[in-house]
């Protein structure tokens, strides 16, 4: 099941060139870009692992693409996303977040109703 979350997720996967262009846009706006990964794409999992610290002092998309590629190499079977954080006072939140890497096979996740049984009711996919 193809996971759709974040910006652009209903489009075909972005090429590296398109990713770099998006990152360039983020940098031009002065947002700090960071890379995160997870093996649990469930929408309620808002805590993806950080791949390195957010990059506040990078001027060019090539620097961030290095990090994206390093993450892909380290975690070829994880979901990887790029986040852009806007530190403007009063905003201080994510402005853009999109998936840049997916595992070869996406098992997806399913909801298991468990009324009357133990557990929270939501379990990760097979």
């Amino acid at each position, binding site marked *: 099941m193809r996971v759709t979350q974040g910006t652009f997720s209903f489009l075909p996967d972005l090429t590296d060139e398109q990713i770099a262009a998006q990152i360039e846009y983020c940098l031009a706006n002065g947002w700090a870009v960071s890379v995160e990964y997870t093996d649990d794409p469930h929408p309620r999992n808002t805590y993806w692992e950080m791949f390195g610290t957010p*990059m506040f*002092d*990078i*001027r*060019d*998309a*090539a*620097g*961030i693409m*290095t*990090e994206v590629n390093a993450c892909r190499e380290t975690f070829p079977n994880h979901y990887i996303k790029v986040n852009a954080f806007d530190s403007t006072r009063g905003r201080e939140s994510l402005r853009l977040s999109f998936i840049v890497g997916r595992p070869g096979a996406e098992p997806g996740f399913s909801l298991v109703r468990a009324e009357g049984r133990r557990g929270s009711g939501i379990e990760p996919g097979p």
Partner: protein
Amino acid sequence: MNARVDHVPSRDGENAAPTAEESYDLEAVYRDSHVGEVLESLDRELVGLAPVKSRIRDIAALLLIDKLRRGVGLSSGPPALHMSFTGNPGTGKTTVAMRMAEILHRLGYVRKGHLVAVTRDDLVGQYIGHTAPKTREVLKRAMGGVLFIDEAYYLYRPENERDYGQEAIEILLQVMENQRDDLVVILAGYRDRMETFFRSNPGMSSRIAHHIDFPDYTAEELVAIARLMLQQMQYRLSEPAHEALREYIEKRRAQPHFANARSVRNALDRARLRQASRLFERKGGSICRQELETIEEPDIRASRVFSANA
């Protein structure tokens, strides 16, 4: 510059059959790139350094022609732009590197045109596994601009075979080779030590296309530099002070640890200090604008350089 490159495009035109009749307005490309302004300000604001300036002009011309060649579809691999600046301290290596970043940016060879200046400490870690991330971090920061490595020979310490500097060199080489269009690396340092460094790292030497040597300044050039610095700080030299400065530079040049323009800057800073305390000790009465901006002879004559030789 125009005279030198003007006839080149016509030669290109003959080679490229389908576009032989089309002519390209070199003047317009030159104007659009605004490289002329940078080169002019280089000429205006940097005293001396004739061989350096002519090399920079050559590089700028090459890049400009290369751009035109790409425009007509002639082959133009990304030119190797990594450089090494060698010369004694205070000969303007960092200043020129900053200009270089601007020139490369105007010609579109680096995307952002910023300069990241680092030394060994910024690249090499203190324990195993610390160096690679540190070097990568710096490289990431320099992407799209120019990485300036000052005193690059410290990266290689032959006396310690387990030194982590070697690791930093290897990562640098890899990026210099594979991401040539993402950043330009400039290595700088003293001439003789850089030569030793390149001899022991042939891989580094062969990846650097431009070796630029910065000559020492002559006494007249140093005086001109001093005037330029004072002008920027909005100070003036009185006529006798000017003479004293000339003598000072002659004497200082003969002494050890002379660092060219840097020594001149330090001398001027000390002269400002003396001027300030001279005015301050006078107390009482008013000070006019002219006194505030003029450095007098005694401010310079009080230097240790004169007393030591007396």
